[in-house]
């Protein structure tokens, strides 16, 4: 498929093995995955499709100290924070995802019976490559000659298991060791950093579902030399490089600030209708998630991008008609400024899915998608992007 923007399914095919071994105190986690890259199925063109180790780490959970519970992760880690959706994720993903080798310390402390304080900090190192490393498709055109580390800290409180408030901070530092090459913005090498400040609030209560609100600022200082220790920002945008390209502009020098606020509401209609009885999920239901996110470039050295706005919106519904069959509908929109015009993509994606039971985690899904592009997002008239899309796939988690 030749497309851009958000698609209603994961854009690949493959599998992931998540293995764990240990005791209640110490556990090893390993994820090993592959995307279907057999030459028989699609031609051996992308070594990045795996198979590969994804994450691997030790999780240590010492005995609680009174009401203080601690956990330590050491190894090759990814961490996600501040997604406004249910379980801290959401339609547009977490607002802060981190990665690297290092450690993360998590703690929870029962302040009172109804108040629980949580905190976390971590230090991650992101390996780099030499300046003369040959970049190419197989290595995602990795930025050369830079080394990075990320420090992050988080503080939160949960009240009555219903109200959640959290603050998130992450600082990604890049040391630029280049002697000959320029940055991707055609600027001389310069040590840089990218700081992220996000606030998160969430309410959840039966039968109404959950509402999440996250917002904050990404602050870039000569960030063209900062790698992707901040793995995802807005809508899975990877690292400082892609965030700069999307929101600060090519003349920014990697300097600027992007403000973002997003919200998501998830609910089950049957839960609301059945209340005060408990809905167990073993009956017809309509599940709805609706999300929106606004971005504003509040500062940048690129005058074209200054004070420019963007938005994202999404709707995901599933009508579970029987234990075996559902109707689905997903709709997404993205609209933001670029120096070649407004970049926008909208899509409408009805579908059907089959599952083996009401609560099973298996799906066979057929989706039709109709996509709408602006000129800036589909500028090549000689090779226009696909407008219509059909996807048939299956997945199962266990």
């Amino acid at each position, binding site marked *: 498929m030749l497309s851009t923007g958000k698609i209603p399914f994961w854009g690949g095919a493959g599998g992931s093995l998540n293995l764990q071994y*240990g005791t209640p105190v110490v556990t*090893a986690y390993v994820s090993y995955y592959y995307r279907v890259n057999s030459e028989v199925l699609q031609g051996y063109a992308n070594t990045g499709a795996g198979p590969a180790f994804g994450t691997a780490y*030790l999780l240590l959970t010492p005995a609680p100290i009174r009401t203080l519970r601690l956990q330590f992760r*050491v190894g090759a880690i990814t961490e996600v924070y501040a997604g406004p959706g249910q379980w801290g994720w959401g339609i547009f993903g977490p607002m802060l995802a981190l990665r690297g080798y290092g450690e993360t310390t998590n703690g929870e402390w029962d302040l009172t019976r109804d108040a629980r304080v949580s905190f976390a900090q971590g230090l*991650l190192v*992101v390996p780099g490559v030499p300046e003369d490393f040959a970049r190419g498709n197989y290595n995602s055109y990795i930025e050369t000659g830079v080394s990075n580390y990320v420090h992050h800290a988080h503080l939160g409180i949960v009240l009555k298991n219903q109200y959640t408030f959290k603050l998130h901070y992450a600082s990604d530092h890049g040391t630029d060791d280049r002697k000959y090459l320029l940055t991707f913005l055609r600027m001389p090498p310069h040590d840089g950093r990218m700081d992220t400040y996000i606030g998160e609030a969430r309410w959840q209560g039966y039968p109404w579902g959950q509402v999440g609100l996250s917002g904050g600022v990404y602050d870039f200082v000569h960030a063209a030399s900062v790698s992707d220790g901040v793995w995802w920002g807005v809508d899975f945008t990877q690292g400082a490089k892609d965030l700069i390209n999307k929101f600060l502009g090519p003349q920014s020098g990697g300097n600027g600030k992007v403000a973002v606020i997003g919200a998501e509401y998830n609910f089950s209609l049957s839960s609301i209708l059945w209340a005060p009885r408990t809905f167990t999920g073993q009956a017809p239901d309509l599940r709805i998630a609706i999300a929106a996110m606004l971005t504003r470039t509040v500062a940048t050295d690129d005058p074209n991008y200054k004070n420019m706005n963007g938005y994202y919106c999404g709707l995901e519904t599933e009508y579970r008609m029987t234990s075996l069959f559902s109707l689905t509908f997903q709709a997404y929109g993205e609209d933001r400024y670029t120096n070649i015009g407004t970049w926008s993509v909208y899509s409408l994606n009805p579908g059907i899915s089959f599952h083996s039971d009401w609560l099973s985690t298996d799906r066979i899904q057929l989706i039709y998608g109709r996509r709408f592009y602006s000129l800036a997002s589909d500028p090549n008239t000689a090779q226009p992007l696909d407008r219509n899309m059909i996807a048939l796939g299956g997945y199962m988690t266990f």
Partner: protein
Amino acid sequence: MNRKHSTTMKPVLSANKRSAIILLALLAAPVLARAADGNDVGVPRLGLDPGEPQSPSPPPAVPFGVQPAQSKEYVLDFHGYLLLPATLGLHERPDPQPGQSSLVLHSPPLVPQDLRDFEYTGVVPSPWLQLNFIYGNSTVSATVIVAGTSAIDAAGYYDPVAQMGVNDAYLTVNLTKWLSIPLQVNVGALTGRYGAMGGYDAGRYGTPLIARTNTIGETITGSVRLGADFFLMFEQGLGGQMGRPPIGLVPAGWNDFANANVGATFVNHAHLGLAYSQLLRLGFHYLTAWTQDDLADGGGGQVPDGRITVLGADVNFTAGRAGHLYFGAAHTWATNASTVSGAIEILNARGGPELVAHYLGPNSNGNGSLSIFGGQYDLSLARLVFGKWYTGLSPDVTISLFGVGASVSSQDPAYDGVLKLKGGVEATYSLLSWMGVSERFDHVRLNNSDSKQAFTSLATRLLFHTGWRSRNEIALQYAYFVYGSSVQALTGYPPVLEVNPDRQVFSLTGTIWW
């Protein structure tokens, strides 16, 4: 054979011994105890089992469920080893430009720690991930080992070579109950490591002293009892590599800068050993790797056939409370070896091309020889004093002394007569069930007659575990390097030597094995 120790009886102690106990109770490393905790199943062997992790210092594996070697029925067994370091090298910029700090941070650190070269000490850890899946019963089993040197969600994807996929896959047939002597046949893609300096691993340098083989073929391992306590051990193997890099292949990062000039290479090896109880093991090793491929060296057919032959001997002395002593020596002959592939490794150098690059010199035409010697001694002070009463569940101090030397004889005058030496000492004090400290000193002389080609490292580590005999460790390490003026570190694409390596390296490492 189960080597678990009794913990129920208490000794009667003399006054002197009681004093020693008090002294050592304040000190006392679970390392040896952990190492001794496990089951040995199968045939005694002269090299490392190919299923053992390809990374330094893991003790014997323990069963996840039921070991196939102990089961009449087909069962699935699962093991793993994770070594996951975050490393950061500190360096000073000689001429910082505007916007550049005078302090440079390198990840990965820029230090002389090339595993394939003599300079490697293993002081700065690098990632290793390994999952072993074994299916079978006591007669036949299949082993598949998935391995890698990077976790891409954390590190990004830029080095396909770091994802090895299925690294080893072999079939094991145990003929012991038919032949009435321990005899095991491995067939498939597997490694052989001979000259393991550690009690249960390749030693502090992670380098088999005699040789390593990387082939698809067979290995037969067996032993014959000679009297009450003596065993005659033997091993034989024959194999080759599945393919050679095709002619015209452009060396690049994605293919690990493959050398298309090597020919299809085969290895034949035989080993003979004499063991006395579990106290002493004497081994003699012969390996020869050769190529007779008309496609070698670009297919011109003009190069002579290449060969690398190794003769070696080693002795393992496992003396209970006196610790474990290893000493070995080997002589390697290289004859037109530039076309011999990495089916054989000498001191981790893959085949002739790396033997030439690191030892024989570019003008040697692949001809020359290498005399290698090395040893390691590991001692547990708690075990020394308490003997079998020490169960690993109390403080301990372990001390390791280790060293390796290599003398080069080459047709390249610049390399002929070079003597390379490295040695070190490490002391580990396990003072609490959850914490220990360790200090390691290493000195490396890349050319004994030139002090400018020498460097020294001092590494201090804080170690954290979940118990005295746990199989996990979190290590926080600070290492300081002092370099001679000619010491260089590998970096670049392809890796080339660069002067001015990092002097300080911080690392935080999580390790677990099961």
